[in-house]
């Protein structure tokens, strides 16, 4: 009997903790989302209630039409679309070539790629990257970002794809080879179609990365504000002198930026979690 009560108390306690953390976790999101329906007047004065006194859609129409968010949203979609699409091909091809290919210096090249992981320059290589992009004339548009992301060889993606392709039985490609399939043909007609679950994971990881990226797109659109993606646009709004008077726009813009992400997450959260964990543990 007393054991039962003890357990009941500990279970209640655990749920209390979980709900407490949950509250802190969702609070900033609710704050943003509900705040985006408040009037700017309310945002600047009443700061105690999550629920707006009056729901207005004004902020969204204003952000969309006057504050360029229509363009920013388009740019974000454009950027993410090409990065996701391109990365799916370049990552699976690199993984395939390193796993199944056979050519001189393969291991040396692979070691070179891997070793780049240990140089922790982070965002500090952005300047030289921009200068190199300038040589090719792609430093003032999102194409520069897309090309760097797609062809820059993402080590995490390489690890994930290589490990996945390793699990595909080699006899499949060998019998295709006997039938006269070339190395590329095997990738196109046999390996790639078998990678569907992996492609979903890659797409979601890359979408998150491209949609959320801030510094690189910022640097590439410094002199070309028309091409700014959402995150850069919102930060630009914050940095501008009008920040205090545009809380409503910032909140509406932020909602526009995070809601697609959360919807995608809600639908595909399984892929997210497996993808993110696979990448980090293997790396």
């Amino acid at each position, binding site marked *: 009997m007393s054991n039962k009560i003890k357990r009941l108390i500990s279970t209640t306690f655990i749920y209390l903790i*979980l709900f407490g953390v949950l509250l802190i976790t969702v609070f900033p999101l609710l704050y943003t989302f509900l705040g985006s329906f408040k009037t700017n007047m309310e945002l600047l004065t009443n700061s105690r209630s999550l629920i707006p006194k009056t729901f207005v859609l004004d902020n969204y129409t204003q952000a969309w039409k006057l504050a360029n968010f229509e363009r920013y949203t388009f740019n974000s979609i454009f950027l993410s679309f090409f990065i996701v699409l391109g990365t799916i091909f370049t990552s699976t091809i690199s993984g395939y070539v*390193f796993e199944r290919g056979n050519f001189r210096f393969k291991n040396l090249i692979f070691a070179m790629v891997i070793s780049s992981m240990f140089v922790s320059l982070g965002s500090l290589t952005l300047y030289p990257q921009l200068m*190199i992009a300038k040589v090719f004339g792609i430093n003032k548009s999102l194409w520069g970002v897309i090309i760097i992301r797609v062809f820059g060889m993402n080590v995490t993606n390489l690890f994930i794809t290589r490990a996945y392709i390793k699990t595909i039985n080699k006899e499949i490609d060998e019998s295709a080879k006997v039938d006269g399939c070339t190395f590329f043909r095997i990738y196109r007609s046999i390996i790639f179609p078998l990678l569907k679950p992996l492609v979903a994971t890659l797409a979601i990881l890359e979408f998150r990365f491209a949609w959320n990226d801030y510094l690189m797109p910022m640097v590439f659109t410094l002199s070309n504000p028309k091409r700014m993606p959402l995150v850069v646009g919102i930060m630009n709004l914050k940095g501008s002198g009008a920040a205090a008077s545009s809380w409503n726009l910032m909140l509406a813009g*932020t909602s526009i930026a995070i809601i697609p992400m959360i919807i995608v997450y809600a639908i595909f959260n399984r892929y997210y979690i497996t993808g993110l964990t696979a990448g*980090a543990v293997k790396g």
Partner: protein
Amino acid sequence: MKTSNKSSNSTYKVKWFKKDSTQAVLMLSPMLIGFILFTYVPIIYILRYAFYDSNGFKETFIGIENFIRVFTRDKSYWSSLLNTIILTFGKLAVEIPLALFLAVLLNKGRKGTGFFRTTLFMPTVISAAIAGLIFSLMFASFNGMVNGILQDIGIIEKPISWFSSKGSALFVIGFASVWNNFGINMVFFLMALQSVPVELYECASLDGVNAFQRFFKITLPMIGPTFQVVLLNAIVGSLKMADLILSTTNGQPGGKTEVVMTYVFKYFFGYDARAVEVGYASSMALVTAVILALIAFIYMRSSKKLGNSY
């Protein structure tokens, strides 16, 4: 591997571009070129410019003058590095135990575990820059909701100006970072916990082991290797923090909350009305890379015990 010989000697007539190894190289070459151009060349670029005085247009070779400047004259650089370290270890001291604690709670297979896991993971999908923005609005001094709530509860009398002193500003930044990142670590720990054999716990409960002993003597050693990798990722990731700072304080007040990445970044781009000093920024980037590598190395050395604890 061995079959490539078989196919190539069976067909002499095949042109060389039909050879498997040639095709492999051709398929890889766009990525290889991209990799060399955008990963290796920038490193070489930084290595070179570290010895130059350059504003992006004019450059003169000045030897190790830049390094002398970093080590002897630039106090702000070292204080930004110190901030990075304080912020990293301060926030991880909360984030990692929190993530582990939640993982242990969720590992028991109670009702609603899936729901909690999915929801607690949610902030992880949000951009660090956006997370910083949301927190800077919530913690705004006059109309921020946090001040409002704290006043309502009666904890504080008048609004706190969170971002005007270094301590409280770093606290908010750390808070935002924990919020943004604890979910992923929680999921890592959860995965590791699920691979701990249940029999171990059963044996322990027969021997009358209590919950604390169970955690420290069984759970922690069993997930040691995962713990080591997770912590390494978390440390390296936090040391490279930049977006969050730019979106909250942007180094204000007076550069006191600058972290090393943002500090050097601003010298590269002449951000915030600073002069562009590519050469000097490059040398700082090099020093930073070496220091970060050193921290990771020391960590790996000292956490060896963790990695092979079972």
